[in-house]
C-alpha cells in the first residue's frame, strides 16, 4: 500500500502499475504493461529479493519506462505526422486545384479583356471611318449644292441684265428675289463648309502673335478702314498658343460682328485690348459701340443659325459666333461677352499664353 501511494504521487500515474509490476516481475510487466492485474501471479510476492537487487530492478524499470514513454510518444507523433501529412497532401491538392481554377479564370479574363480591347479598337476604327465618310459626304454635298445654285443665280442675273426691259417692275423684283435667295443660300453653304473646316482642322497649337495677326486681318477689309470704321488696338496684344487659320477666322468673325451690329448712321468704333489673366492665360477684348445684346438673348448668342435681329436689318447667316466658339474651344480656350442693350458689347476670348517666337 505504501508503494502504491508513493506511485500515485508520481506525475505519470498511469505508469504506477507498470512500476509496481516491474518491482514484482519485470519480465511480465514488460510483456503486458497495460495489464498489471493479470501479472499478479500467485506466489509472485514471495520471490526473495535483496536490497541491491531491488534497487537494480528499479533502475531498469525507470529506464524501461523512459523508453516506453519515448516509444509511445514516437508512435503518437508518427500518427500525428501521418495525419498531418495526409491533411497537408489534401490541402495542397485542393490548393493546386484552386490555383489552377484561378489561373484559368485569369486567363479567361485576360482573353476577354483582350477581346474587348480588340472590339473597342475595331468599333472606334469603324466609327472614325463612318465619321470621315460622313464628313466627306457632307462636304461634297455642300459643294455639289453650290453648282446648281450658281446656275439659278447666273441665269436670273442674265435675265435681269439682258431681258429686264421686257419685264414690268414686279417681274424684275421677282428675279431680284431669286438672285438674293440664291446668293443667301450660297452664303449659308459656305458658312457650313467653314464650320466643318473649323471642326476638323488639324489644331496643332503654336505661339501666335495676336498683335501682328489682328493688324493683318484688319488690313484686308476695306470696310474696316477709316472713315467707314475706327478699329483701334490699345497697347500691345499678347502672344497666345493657338492655330493661325482658326484664330484668323475668329478675329475676322468677331470684328465683322462688331462692325455690323450698329444703329443706323453710327460709325463703328472698336477697341481691341489684351489682359493678362492668372494661370498664364491671356484675354483679348473686342469692344464696340453697337446696339448691344439684351440679357434675354444671352444664351442664344453662340447658337448655330441663331439670329437675334431681323435679317433685313443686318445681313449674315447666324453661324459666325458658333464658328468662333468652336474654334476657340478647339484651341483649349474660352469665349464670352458682357453687354447691355444700347451700351455696345464687349466680347472676349481667352487662350493660353504663348512664348514669343
Amino acid at each position: 500500500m505504501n508503494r502504491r501511494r508513493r506511485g500515485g504521487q508520481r506525475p505519470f500515474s498511469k505508469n504506477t502499475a507498470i512500476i509496481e509490476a516491474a518491482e514484482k516481475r519485470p519480465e511480465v510487466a514488460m510483456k503486458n504493461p497495460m495489464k498489471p492485474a493479470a501479472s499478479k501471479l500467485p506466489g509472485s510476492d514471495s520471490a526473495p529479493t535483496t536490497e541491491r537487487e531491488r534497487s537494480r530492478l528499479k533502475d531498469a524499470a525507470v529506464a524501461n519506462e523512459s523508453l516506453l514513454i519515448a516509444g509511445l510518444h514516437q508512435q503518437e507523433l508518427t500518427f500525428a505526422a501521418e495525419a498531418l501529412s495526409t491533411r497537408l497532401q489534401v490541402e495542397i491538392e485542393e490548393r493546386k486545384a484552386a490555383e489552377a481554377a484561378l489561373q484559368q479564370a485569369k486567363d479567361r479574363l485576360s482573353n476577354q479583356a483582350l477581346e474587348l480591347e480588340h472590339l473597342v479598337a475595331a468599333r472606334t476604327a469603324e466609327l472614325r471611318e463612318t465619321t470621315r465618310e460622313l464628313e466627306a459626304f457632307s462636304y461634297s454635298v455642300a459643294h455639289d449644292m453650290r453648282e446648281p445654285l450658281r446656275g439659278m443665280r447666273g441665269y436670273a442675273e442674265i435675265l435681269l441684265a439682258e431681258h429686264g426691259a421686257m419685264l414690268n417692275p414686279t417681274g424684275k423684283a421677282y428675279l431680284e428675289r431669286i438672285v438674293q435667295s440664291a446668293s443667301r443660300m450660297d452664303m449659308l453653304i459656305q458658312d457650313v463648309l467653314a464650320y466643318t473646316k473649323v471642326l476638323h482642322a488639324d489644331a496643332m497649337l503654336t505661339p501666335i502673335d495676336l498683335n501682328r495677326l489682328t493688324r493683318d486681318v484688319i488690313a484686308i477689309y476695306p470696310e474696316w478702314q477709316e472713315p467707314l470704321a475706327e478699329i483701334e488696338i490699345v497697347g500691345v496684344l499678347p502672344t497666345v498658343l493657338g492655330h493661325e487659320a482658326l484664330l484668323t477666322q475668329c478675329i475676322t468673325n468677331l470684328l465683322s460682328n462688331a462692325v455690323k451690329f450698329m444703329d443706323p448712321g453710327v460709325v463703328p468704333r472698336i477697341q481691341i485690348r489684351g489682359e493678362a489673366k492668372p494661370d498664364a492665360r491671356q484675354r483679348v477684348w473686342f469692344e464696340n459701340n453697337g446696339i448691344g445684346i439684351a440679357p434675354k438673348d444671352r444664351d442664344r448668342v453662340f447658337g448655330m443659325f441663331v439670329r437675334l435681329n431681323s435679317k433685313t436689318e443686318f445681313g449674315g447667316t447666324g453661324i459666325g459666333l458658333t464658328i468662333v466658339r468652336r474654334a476657340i474651344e478647339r484651341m483649349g480656350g474660352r469665349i464670352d461677352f458682357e453687354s447691355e442693350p444700347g451700351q455696345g458689347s464687349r466680347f472676349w476670348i481667352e487662350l493660353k499664353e504663348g512664348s514669343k517666337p
Partner: protein
Amino acid sequence: MKPITILLVEDEESSAFFFQHVMTKLEMPQSLQVAQDGQEALDYLDGKGRFRDRITFPIPGLIVLDLKMPRVTGFEVLGWIRKQPELRKLIVIVMSTSASDSDINQAYELGANAYVVKPSGLDELAEVLRSIQHFWLAHNRGPIVRVSTVDKTNVP
C-alpha cells in the same frame, strides 16, 4: 497674230455657259474651246479623233481646269499634262468649287500655275476673268509650246 485659245475644262454646262457669256460681255479677244470632262481634255490636248485638226482646235495658251469631273478628274488631267514633254509648260489655272486646303495643295503639287475658287455670281466671275486677262493673258510672258504635227493633224 492668231488670238490665244483658252481651253475651259468644265463638265457643268451652266458654268461653261456663264464663262462664255462673261467673256463675250468683257469683249475678250481670246477664242474659247470647251472640253466637257477630263477625258475630252486629254483627247483635245493629245489631238485625238476630231481634235486632230489643230487649226480648229489649236494648242491653248491657257487652260482653265475644273477639278471635280466624271471619267477623268482635273487632278488627273493636270498630272498628265505635266508628264507630256511637249505640253508640260502649258499654263493651267484651276477653277474649282473646292476651297479645301488639301485640294489646293494637291493642285499646286501637281503643277497648277494658279488656283481660283469658282465665284458664285456673274459679277465675281467677270472680276476673275478680268484679272486673268490682265495678268495671265497680257502681262505674263507664257512659255513657247510647239507640238509635232506628225500624225496628229490632217492639215498640210
